[in-house]
């Protein structure tokens, strides 16, 4: 092996290090990944009809829209930020796709335009939140207004529209891609999941993303470019949110600039339920996926129990509090000394 310079007779060199906090972290991550399974069992027991191909697929289609929307939220939280512009981006994609398709644009051209606009939104978010240490909360909030307003002005508030048939098929629980019996929306989500996780775990960018969230000053000195990372993070988030907006067009067939509004809180909820710390530097999209599945099934469960949307909301709030109390509490100030 290589030459160790530690002298054999130096007993003081390594005073026994304090215990790692890994045990606790491991325990809670097991909890996180088991919770969708547990929730599914509860759901099948209480709600008839879930345990069928169509039932599972409709759950997965719902989950894939939320899952795509939550990519950006997860990464934003991992670098210590937050993204409130996701609903606006979803709305933007939704409106552009439906109105432009109705006007006779080719689908490819529309997707290209939506992608360019998404990149612009993400770049602006990234650049602005790097300036003067501006809080991303306010930056993305302002960006949300700007995007929604611009879309409304550009389309004159026109909400009519049309979508290509394959977008409707993509979100249909009985839809099928390449004859494998899985709706295209779910396939898209799974592909995104694979790419996102690979980027988190296997790329230089992924490591730098964690480093930035963990300690910005140290990251700079370790040759990380915070502006670049932020621009990419918010851009990827906007692209995925656009994909979610496109899929949503398949549900309604019509356009609505506010169709993304519920996704403001539900993406944050999915991230939080997945246990990604809002302090940044930790977490993964895999956890968010667990969060997405749990919240989707939870909502389905409440609907099955004939609980109205208002009480669903109340229950969701309480569920968040209970989950965070179990594994997401802050440290007391004395423990930070």
């Amino acid at each position, binding site marked *: 092996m290589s030459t160790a310079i530690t002298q054999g007779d130096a007993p003081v060199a390594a005073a026994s290090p304090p215990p790692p906090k890994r045990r606790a972290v491991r325990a809670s991550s097991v909890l996180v990944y088991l919770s969708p399974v547990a929730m599914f069992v509860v759901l099948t027991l209480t709600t008839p009809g879930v345990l069928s191909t169509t039932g599972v697929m409709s759950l997965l289609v719902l989950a894939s829209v939320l899952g795509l929307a939550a990519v950006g939220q997860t990464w934003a939280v991992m670098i210590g930020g*937050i993204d*409130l512009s996701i609903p606006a981006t979803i709305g933007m994609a939704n409106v552009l796709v439906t109105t432009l398709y109705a006007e006779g644009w080719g689908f490819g051209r529309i997707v290209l335009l939506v992608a360019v606009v998404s990149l612009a939104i993400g770049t602006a978010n990234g650049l*602005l939140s790097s*300036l*003067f*240490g*501006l*809080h991303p*909360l*306010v*930056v993305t*909030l*302002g*960006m*949300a*207004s*700007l*995007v*929604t*307003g*611009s879309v*409304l*002005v550009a389309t*004159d*508030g026109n909400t009519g529209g049309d979508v290509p048939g394959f977008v409707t098929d993509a979100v249909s629980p009985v839809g099928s891609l390449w004859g494998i019996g899985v709706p295209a929306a779910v396939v898209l989500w799974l592909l995104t999941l694979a790419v996102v996780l690979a980027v988190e775990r296997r790329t230089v960018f992924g490591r730098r993303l964690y480093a930035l969230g963990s300690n910005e000053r140290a990251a700079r000195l370790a040759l990380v470019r915070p502006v670049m990372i932020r621009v990419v993070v918010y851009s990827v988030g906007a692209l995925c949110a656009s994909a979610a907006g496109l899929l949503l067009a398949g549900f309604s067939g019509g356009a609505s600039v506010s169709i993304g509004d519920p996704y403001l*809180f539900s993406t*944050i*909820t999915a991230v*939080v339920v997945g246990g990604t710390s*809002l*302090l940044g530097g930790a977490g993964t999209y895999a956890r968010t996926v667990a969060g997405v599945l749990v919240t989707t099934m939870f909502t389905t469960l409440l609907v099955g129990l004939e609980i*109205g949307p*208002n*009480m*669903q*909301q*109340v229950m*969701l*709030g*309480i569920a*968040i*509090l209970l989950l*965070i*109390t179990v594994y*997401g*509490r*802050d*440290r*007391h*100030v*004395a423990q*930070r*000394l």
Partner: protein
Amino acid sequence: MSATVATPLLQTVARKVPYFVPALVAVGVMLLLTASESETFLDGGWKLVLVYASPLVLLAMAQAPVVLSGGGGLDLSVGPTAGLVSVVIAAVLIPRDLSVAWLVIVAAILTGAAAGAVNATLVTLVRIPPIIATLATYLVFAGLATQVLGAPTGFLPEWMSWFTSVDGVLPNVLYVILGVGLVWLLLTRTAYWRNLLMVGSNDRAAYTAGVNVTAVRFLAYLLTGVMAGVAGLVLTAVLGGADSTVGPTYTLQAIAAVALGGLSLAGGRGGLFGAAVGAVLLFLIQNYLTLTEASSFELRMAYGVVLIVAIVANGAWDRKRKAR
């Protein structure tokens, strides 16, 4: 450390001038613009503008204590809390003929205080990060409010029109805002102000110095709740009824107003006055755009631009102030 170089003028100014001055100047500009656009504005029209702005102003003020208390302090639930208050008034008190003024006012404040206490407990005792805790209570309060009061109602006791009256020299609602401000002013004369700023800017320093960090933060959330309660009362009067869906829409605006008013979202810098100025600024911008017959679409777009520009300017200003 470094040798003192002649300090640039702008930096000197930035250091001397209080944090809220940029927002105040912007308010002045907006007032001039509004007056030039609307003939009736100076001739009493401003009173009505203030009445319509008052729920936002009060909610921005409500947001201030928790933002000041640091540690990521934020109350996303101020809007739903105000909504909950209006539901308590319209769906609980009035149907039972409990619409005496004092009772309604006390009930509004207590409802706000209860909501604040829930948030305070979750954040300071259970130690759930503020943004998550108040997101959850946002969902709970908003859900409860809509559950209790499904459809909007417009039946209010006579006396509540006092809040919206503009017959006096000053609009009555201004007295409410000033009253809240006065209570706060008295509070800043006590040790609480120092405790709050210290906890907000460096909780570890505050804790080791002997400040009861938990109590100071708890109180901040409680105060926020109380002020949100007052805002809920005024909101009910301004709406002329209760609508459970209106309150929640104020939350993000209140946060934007606080940021516009020069408060640091990281805590420890700013005050109630800045939050109020920020809210007035936000409302005047919206109002002006409506006056110039911009469509609601353009209004939304301009609102975003203004917010971003203002935040960037505030950030640059703060950078100047802190430069060594």
